[in-house]
């Protein structure tokens, strides 16, 4: 059934376009169209600052940690708020909270590692190779992000992923939210109501 349908649909598409003048692809988006924010190269201070601003504007939280020692100290204090954790498989041992492990559906905290971030949209890039459930089911989501993985534009952040795509590449740009009830914003509707981006690594200077 499907193969016959395929043949007929593609045949009708071909017939529909037969006498139509083809339109050329306009190529890359002209640079002048991009926002005038001077996004720097990956990891540069201006990109990290723009990411922080936009992620916070969407309701996310950001912690800037300049070296691993301070990251572990911060984690210890942060984790004390929670009773259990579900950790994605890519999180290094020393960045895992010292909490009882629980299934993602029961855990108070989910922890994962971003494969990148885009300053332009304030988005974390998460891979399904880490597992979906710990990124989605706990009410609070902590995401570790290396400073050198913060890209300027969303295009730059996605370009590097094209050759090795996971089953799902996801962008998380703030806590779960909805305005479907009387146009009033509520958070934590389905996914995490709190998301914290913990950016780890030294200041890399500006991109200029």
């Amino acid at each position, binding site marked *: *059934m*499907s*193969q016959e*349908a*395929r043949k*007929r*649909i593609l045949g*009708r*598409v*071909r*017939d*529909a*376009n037969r006498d*139509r003048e083809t*339109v*050329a*692809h*306009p190529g*890359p988006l*002209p640079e002048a*169209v*991009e*926002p*005038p924010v001077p996004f720097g190269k990956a990891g540069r201070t201006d990109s990290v600052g723009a990411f922080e601003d936009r992620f916070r504007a*969407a309701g996310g939280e950001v912690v800037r940690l300049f070296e691993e020692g301070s990251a572990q100290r911060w984690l210890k204090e942060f984790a004390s708020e929670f009773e259990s954790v579900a950790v994605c*498989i890519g999180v290094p041992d020393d960045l895992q909270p010292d909490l009882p492990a629980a299934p993602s559906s029961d855990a108070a905290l989910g922890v994962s590692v971003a494969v990148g971030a885009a300053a*332009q949209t304030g*988005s974390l890039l998460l891979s*399904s*190779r880490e*597992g*979906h*459930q710990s990124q989605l089911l706990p009410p609070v989501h902590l995401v570790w992000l290396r400073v050198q993985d913060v890209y300027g*534009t969303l*295009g730059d952040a*996605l*370009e590097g992923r*094209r050759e090795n*795509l*996971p*089953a*799902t*590449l*996801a*962008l998380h*740009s*703030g806590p*779960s*939210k*909805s*305005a*479907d*009830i*009387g*146009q009033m914003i*509520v958070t*934590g*509707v*389905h*996914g995490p109501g709190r998301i914290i981006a913990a950016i780890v690594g030294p200041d890399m200077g500006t991109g200029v």
Partner: protein
Amino acid sequence: MEIHSRDYRQRARHIIQETPEVREAVTAATQTFDDHRRAAFDDLDRDALRRWAEGVKSHALTHLEEYLQEAEARLLERGAQVHWAETASDVHQVFQHIVAKHGVRRAVKAKSMLSEEIGLNPFLEACGVELFETDLGEYIIQLLGEPPSHIVGPAIHRSLEDVQGLFHDRLGTPFDASPEELAKAARRVLRDAFLTADLGISGGNFLVAETGSIALIENEGNIRMSTSLPRIHVALVGIEKVLPRWADLPTFLQVTSKSATGQPVGTFVSIIQGPGCLVGQEPDGPEEFHVILVDCGRTRLLADPEAWEALRCVRCGACLNVCPVYRQTGGHAYGYVYSGPIGAIIGPGLVGLGETVPLPFASSLCGACEEVCPVRIPIPKLLHVWRQRAVERGLTDGAERSILDLWAAAVTHPRLFGWVEKLMAIIPEWVSRRLPMLRDWNSGRELPVVEGRTFRELWEEGIE
């Protein structure tokens, strides 16, 4: 779904007269959407961006055969199962097969306008599947037994009080529950559904040919969950959703989000290439990923020498938000899954002008829709095209046609025009109030007092 567009006038009148709160809710919501849209484009060269987006979509449509085949090849390489469906019935058969093969009892569904087109929910329920709409707005209207009222905000016609009453009756929340408490109650029901469903159903905002990626934009996280937690995921994708290159996707994600809600990008974006278990041994995710490429009138619209441009639509809803006619009634008056200006030009193309004939006339032709469209669809021009075809095919009201014919004859014959002028000057008000065409215009308006003499007579007497 059943189409009730022919009753547009009666439905619109009923909504305006019987439920005036709908106009209030819809106007407030759409104005907020539009304010956010304007702010989102403030620091961009919006015209250049729209021209670029128009170019990419037109390129994709004029090369649609090769891009569909490319997308299919990439999806198959990654372990997806690709189905082609010409009609709603073809889509139903695919689902019937999946439901029977896997013994599906429970399904969670993300918002998909295409699923509304093909009447998927009643079909699955008839197959014995317990189906949960998981977008909060869709969940509200599922409980109410209503179709969506807006492409992006399906329940914008409902107030907080409406939802309080509904959830009190169905979920046992207090009458005065806050939006947070109401959302929490829905979350409890739907979280259980996510964790126990066998099947997850989604639409697709974009299909990237180069990588075979289905991209979905949302704010709640329900699409992320519907597409990753159940063991089977089925994505319904209209064949016009193709983007040629991976590099096109970032801009389209942003343009669509900004146009819809004014966000830089939706809170969650899922870019899906294949089933979890087959790509690099991932820890979770669906075991099967099905993509149904759906025609349902799209090839007919593509063949239309003028209206094909409507297929560029990215379903952002920006044209609904600025439409002064849509704001009066919301989407239910249109009697079709797509409402507002875009519904008025897509509906006749997808399901035929005979079924949807009043819709192209449900517009003031102010042009605001074209101005905000991120892919520059010439909506007012296409409304004219469908109106003209409706007249040519004799689908418009007979009395209206006769009066317009008389008017055309009068204004092209000066002597006849003079007689009509005299007639109109002496005609009693109670008669003019009952004339076809004038009847609707006159209702709710005070007619000017007739002076008794025509302009031409006054002119000949010498007007100071």
